[in-house]
């Protein structure tokens, strides 16, 4: 295999043969089209957020962020994520344990059900809670009689957020834990560890990066969710407005700087999420399940 011509056909070598890759002009053309598409559809929307937010200078930007309604929207978004994400983490770990560690009937069906919220329109995710808890809803009368407010209040927003972010952690952990098998756990148990110890000292360290990955995506979605939250929130300024809803209100009031200032915080969150996600993929690619994205 000393012949250089044969060597150039080895898979790791960048072959320039016309039959195995495109000619240089074609390659450049394809790259140009792909980059142009990404710039127009992905990069420009991101840039314009910051451009518009700073259109009237830094002063106007910080001023619109210190508005009390904006402040309360930020607090509400953080509060909702702080409740919704841990709930879905507990569910995700529990579902992954049941599905990945055991063989039982109906497992495939259960896995499909977990993905269900991804195929439901966000608006419908909000609507189902209105039908349940609204004034004309199934539980509406009972809730009213007992003075419990779910819709147009924080509990409704949390529920809608939990619904739309439901699959993120579970679908990250299930394939990862399936791939890792039960060997480590069986060894720990045979050495006398109890169930909790096995989970805490063996399973959790094995899946920690995958779990973090799922939490990251779950958090980004729960802070950014618009449709589902919009249906259940009632849009009460200073009370039930999350950041994305506040963006809409400011935008519809022709307060472009205000809307884009809040939007820039959300875009910043998206960028941080992407950077952390990329770092996790680069460093711990093998320890994160093969399912990337979504």
């Amino acid at each position, binding site marked *: 295999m000393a012949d250089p011509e044969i060597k150039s056909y080895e898979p790791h070598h*960048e*072959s320039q*043969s016309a*039959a195995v890759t*495109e000619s240089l002009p074609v390659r450049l053309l*394809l*790259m140009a089209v*792909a980059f142009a*598409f*990404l710039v127009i559809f*992905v990069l*420009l*929307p*991101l840039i*314009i*957020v910051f451009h518009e937010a700073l259109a009237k200078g830094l002063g106007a930007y910080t001023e619109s962020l210190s508005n009390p309604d904006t402040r309360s929207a930020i607090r509400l978004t953080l509060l909702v994520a702080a409740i919704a994400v841990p709930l879905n983490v*507990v*569910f995700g770990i*529990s579902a992954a344990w*049941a599905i990945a*560690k*055991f*063989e*039982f009937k109906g497992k495939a069906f*259960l896995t499909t*059900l977990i993905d*269900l919220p991804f195929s439901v*329109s*966000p*608006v*419908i995710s909000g*609507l*189902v809670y*209105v*039908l*349940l808890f609204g004034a004309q809803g*199934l539980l509406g009368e009972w809730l009213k009689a007992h003075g419990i407010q779910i819709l147009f209040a924080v509990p409704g927003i949390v529920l809608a957020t939990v*619904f739309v972010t439901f699959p993120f952690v579970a679908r990250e952990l299930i394939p990862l834990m399936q791939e890792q098998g*039960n060997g480590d*756990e069986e060894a720990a*148990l*045979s050495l006398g560890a109890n*169930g909790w110890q096995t989970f805490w000292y063996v399973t959790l360290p094995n899946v920690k990066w995958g779990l973090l990955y799922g939490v990251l*995506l779950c958090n*980004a979605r729960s802070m*950014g969710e*618009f*449709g589902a939250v*919009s249906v259940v929130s009632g849009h009460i300024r200073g009370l039930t407005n999350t950041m*994305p*809803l506040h963006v809409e209100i400011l*935008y519809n009031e022709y307060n*472009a700087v205000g809307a*884009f200032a809040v*939007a820039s915080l959300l*875009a910043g969150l*998206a960028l941080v999420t992407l950077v952390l*996600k990329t770092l996790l993929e680069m460093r711990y690619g093998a320890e994160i399940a093969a399912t990337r*994205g*979504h």
Partner: protein
Amino acid sequence: MTIAPAKAGWRFRQPSVIPGFGLTLGFSLAYLTLIILIPLSGLIWRSAALGWTDFWAIATDRRTLNALEISFGAAFIAAAVNVVFGTLVAWVLVRYRFPGRRIVDAMVDLPFALPTAVAGIALTTLYAPNGWIGHLLAPLGIKVAYTPLGIVVALVFIGLPFVVRTVQPIMEEIDKEVEEAAATLGANRFQIITRILFPGLAPAIVTGFSLAFARGVGEYGSVIFIAGNLPYKSEIAPLLIVIRLEEYNYPAATAIAAIMLLLSFLMLLVINLAQSWSRKRYG
């Protein structure tokens, strides 16, 4: 015992030394039922309670039909656009080496991470007649913002990562030796792409299309800002649900939601069939 105990009784689960099955499965099922299944069956129950004549009247209402047509039509076109450009982006990322490839690769996920309302106002500002892109298109007589074309633009943005992230891993697995063998046997580059590479990628492309399409049909946040929301013209089905809710017309909102769920379900079924067909045909 060498023969499997075929009649040893139906077992719900295989025996295992690992503890916690009852606890984790029980909790998962309870949580799933409370958060997802009960609310969703409430929707189905409410729309069934409408009765066939009422349901049919709402379903065949001109405004409902137009909204569904716009949602499904725009999602279809956007998914088709994403199949072309998403596959191209995946190809460039997998096959070509260039500086900054990591960053470009990460950029593809931005539509996943960027909240839809932010995407909506950003795209609207770009494509408005005085916007960065809009003012270039205006002299050509092309209006994007506040027209159905704007809906397609928003859905292209939303759907892009679904196609790229589905096609990319399959592309990475393609063995270059197959291409080399074909080249040795005298195939030209075009033949290799259409006869060898495309068939292997077809199932992934179909999956990517269906994911982008399903997401586009239900999309709300990024669309309502750019669409203009004219009834019968640029009003999407999720928006019509919201409008009916704001009118306290619960039956109409419920019926439209049920129709959307049903159509999405049928569509996924058809796509699954198409996928298993393409696997058989090309697999």
